[in-house]
């Protein structure tokens, strides 16, 4: 068994930032990641990091833009803390050596981004995430923080009191990919999940193969609910054949979207009369798909993003990486011709329910970055807000886990925060198929942390043995089924019948998962086993997304419903929670908090 004060699961931007902060506060920290840290998907972020640096800009404008972008589903305590601390985090990153793009006077450059009232997006070319990831990993190396790379965390070690708010997380179980060794990781002070996105629940995504919703699903089964999962961001500019992202920076620098008639669609058809291409991402994605659906798409599939008029010098200076991506993954020369783009799954606004310190209702269990929901992004995330999020909340959770925070959180979590239940029936069965999956110790018996861990390791060992020894079908079929139905039925435009179909398909996939087996008999680097375990996580997060989408009968942010074309503040100014409840899931709601540090945010019509 391994033992540390704080264990951080996942070593992308949020995990690295959390580890650095906990280390600075004197904790013995370890990072446990299924990849090597520099392979994490933060490295694929392109556009930038929002922070109010200029004199003319201010944190409250940033907070206001974020609240408006969230379509008033963000919680003010999280938004205010975020906007206030983003500046410090960006300057800190600069002092860690981040190679930001610069102005002539040597200051950090900032560019306009969608939904922002001020150009406040700092960047490093069109490869900001790569530089942020490497800069922070370098600081982890500098501090000698222990990294267990290519160790896949499969389970949290949590006590099993009936009410999740009474439970404690004592660590996790991890599988060393190179050797097949399963070990317990005892965390004296806390486990911070920073496992990233869940794009593999869809088949056209900008996310990496590794983005399988592991943290959200593990925390969910351990008792921490998933929050606002129906809010999925579809990025308006991804390459049609691969889903590779073309940064919003292209539009920030002046790139224009055209339909098949060579019309500037955002203005021609009134999707965003003020901000045009720089409207919020959900607005632009719907605009593009409407063009395609109404017959003005190119090859009935995509639209064109043109940046040629920016000139070669500016493109090379600020967007060079985009030229490489378009060339390598779509065979298009962005200096010579417009680039084909269409919406693709990009970011999950929802995640593990946590407060503004990243702490979940389970004591000692934290979540930060994309796998978490504070809630900062609400119904829609603004471009350039994910990278400062992982800095601000990574730091906050690291500090809290190390015992350096005395303030009480303002955002309530767990069953106690519930305001009302969803009172309809699901069209398909939900949750566990077989006998419930025990969390840890038996029957709420008092157990030492070591016993809880040992039991968790034993449960995982049995699960791995079963998958390895039995005969059965390939998980890839099951995963493909989930991806297909999610992309067909739980996409940008959502209809009741499609959402119901998705839930039925997901149920079928879950039942089929009972029959999966790992064909590779080896203990050495068995990716067949890793992917098979991930697929179970994909099923759980897909179910949460589809059910949350069916239950929310309104149009808010990224969530569009055919039958409900209005935002309904009277009914739905509330967060969706989805709790595992011992394998018998429960969907309920809690109120949105609009009372901020300075003032109360009043929901307004959201137009761009």
């Amino acid at each position: 068994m391994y033992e540390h004060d704080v264990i951080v699961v996942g070593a992308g931007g949020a995990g690295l930032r959390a580890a650095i902060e906990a280390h600075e506060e004197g904790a013995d920290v370890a990072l446990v990641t299924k990849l090597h840290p520099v392979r994490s998907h933060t490295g694929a972020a392109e556009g930038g990091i929002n922070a109010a640096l200029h004199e003319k800009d201010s944190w409250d404008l940033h907070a206001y833009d974020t609240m408006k972008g969230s379509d008033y589903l963000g919680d003010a305590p999280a938004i205010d803390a975020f906007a206030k601390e983003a500046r410090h985090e960006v300057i800190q990153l600069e002092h860690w050596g981040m190679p930001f793009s610069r102005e002539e006077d040597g200051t950090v450059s900032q560019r306009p981004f969608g939904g922002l009232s001020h150009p406040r997006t700092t960047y490093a070319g069109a490869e900001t995430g790569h530089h942020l990831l490497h800069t922070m990993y370098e600081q982890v190396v500098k501090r000698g923080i222990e990294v267990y790379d290519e160790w896949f965390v499969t389970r949290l070690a949590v006590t099993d009191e009936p009410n999740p708010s009474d439970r404690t997380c004592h660590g996790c179980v991890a599988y060393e990919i190179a050797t097949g060794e399963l070990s317990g990781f005892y965390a004296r002070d806390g486990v911070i999940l920073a496992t990233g996105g869940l794009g593999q629940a869809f088949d056209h995504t900008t996310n990496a193969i590794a983005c399988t919703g592991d943290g959200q699903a593990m925390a969910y089964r351990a008792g921490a609910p998933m929050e606002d999962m129906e809010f999925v961001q579809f990025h308006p500019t991804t390459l049609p054949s691969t889903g590779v992202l073309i940064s919003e920076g292209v539009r920030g620098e002046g790139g224009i979207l055209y339909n098949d008639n060579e019309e500037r669609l955002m203005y021609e058809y009134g999707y965003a009369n003020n901000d045009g291409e720089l409207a919020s991402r959900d607005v632009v994605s719907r605009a593009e798909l409407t063009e395609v659906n109404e017959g003005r798409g190119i090859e009935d599939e995509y639209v064109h993003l043109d940046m040629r008029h920016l000139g070669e010098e500016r493109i090379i200076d600020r967007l060079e990486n985009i030229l490489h991506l378009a060339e390598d993954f779509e065979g298009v020369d962005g200096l010579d011709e417009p680039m084909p783009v269409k919406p693709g799954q990009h970011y999950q606004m929802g995640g593990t329910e946590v407060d503004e310190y990243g702490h979940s209702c389970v004591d000692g269990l934290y979540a930060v970055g994309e796998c978490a929901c504070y809630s900062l992004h609400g119904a829609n995330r603004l471009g350039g807000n994910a990278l400062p999020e992982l800095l601000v909340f990574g730091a906050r959770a690291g500090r809290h886990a190390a015992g350096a925070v005395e303030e009480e959180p303002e955002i309530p979590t767990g069953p106690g925060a519930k305001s009302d239940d969803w009172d309809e029936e699901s069209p398909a069965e939900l949750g566990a198929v077989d006998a419930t999956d025990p969390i840890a110790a038996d029957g709420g018996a008092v157990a030492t942390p070591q016993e809880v861990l040992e039991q968790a390791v034993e449960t995982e060992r049995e699960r791995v043995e079963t998958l390895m020894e039995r005969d059965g079908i390939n998980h890839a079929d099951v995963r493909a089924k989930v991806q297909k139905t999610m992309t067909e039925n739980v996409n940008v435009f959502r209809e009741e019948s499609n959402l119901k179909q998705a839930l039925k398909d997901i149920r079928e996939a879950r039942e089929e998962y009972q029959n999966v087996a790992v064909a590779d008999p080896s203990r050495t680097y068995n990716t067949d086993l890793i992917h098979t375990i991930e697929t179970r996580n994909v099923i759980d997060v897909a179910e949460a997304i589809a059910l949350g989408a069916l239950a929310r009968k309104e149009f808010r942010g990224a969530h569009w419903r055919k039958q409900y074309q209005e935002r309904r503040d009277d009914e739905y100014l509330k967060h969706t929670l989805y709790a595992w409840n011992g394998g018998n899931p429960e969907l309920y709601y809690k109120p949105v908090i609009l009372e901020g540090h300075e003032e109360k945010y009043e929901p307004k019509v959201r137009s761009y």
Partner: protein
Amino acid sequence: MSTKIEEKPETETEADEQTSPGEQRRELKRERAAEREQQIQEELSEAEETVGIKVFRFDPEVADKEEPRFDSFTVPFFRGMSVLDALVYARDTYDSSLTFRHSCRQAVCGSDALFINGRQRLACKTQVSDLEWPIRIEPLPHQDVVKDLVVDMEHFYEQMHAVEPFFDPDETPDGELEEQRQTPENREKVKLSTRCIWCGACMSSCNIAAGDNEYLGPAAINKAYRFAMDEREGEDRKQERLRIVEQEHGVWRCQTQFSCTEVCPKDIPLTEHIQELKREAVKSNLKFW
């Protein structure tokens, strides 16, 4: 809202032999195998072309893979197909034990540097149509093979860490931090060096590294360059960095064969950076002499 949990017997002894879960699973597996066989035939016959890949296989603990061998797979070709796409198809369709690292699919995570048709390349950004067929896919040379296409990267990481790869200025200010200045020219100077994705292609291509296990290698030296040339760090730190790369197994081992520069998937002028550090080292030695 609630749903009932259906309990199903798990062990074979509890159920009739004909319908035991184990038997059901085996039956389902047979059905799937038959469906898959049919699907493969359809996909292969529908595809205008098929491409053959020959993939290196090795697993130290599986009887028929202890001796390295090549397996051939036939994959339906489509326009825009990458070598990674072909590998994924082969794994998900024919053999789920086929093992390789991959994640981002867009040349930034650096997981899938492989030896493809005799050259180090990233599988995700290498187009099948640009290669001679059948395509021969091997693990990176000069590194221990863990299994199939997966190599042990530990030595590569150790060399990267040996150059103290972190921003470490001479002085750190107290109190609330203010933004430092960096000229656009200086940022431009380090720009290409910061693009390294730690894929290991350069190290694998280098003859010197192959013969001298302690040689820092092109990626690590490029990392040292990235910091030594950054004006924000300060002169003292730069001198320390030059001393690190000047050691016996440092920059002077490079014989400017340019193999690293040729294979770098991010087009970093590695050899030039090594040469520039040699010049800087000479200059600073003269200064202190």
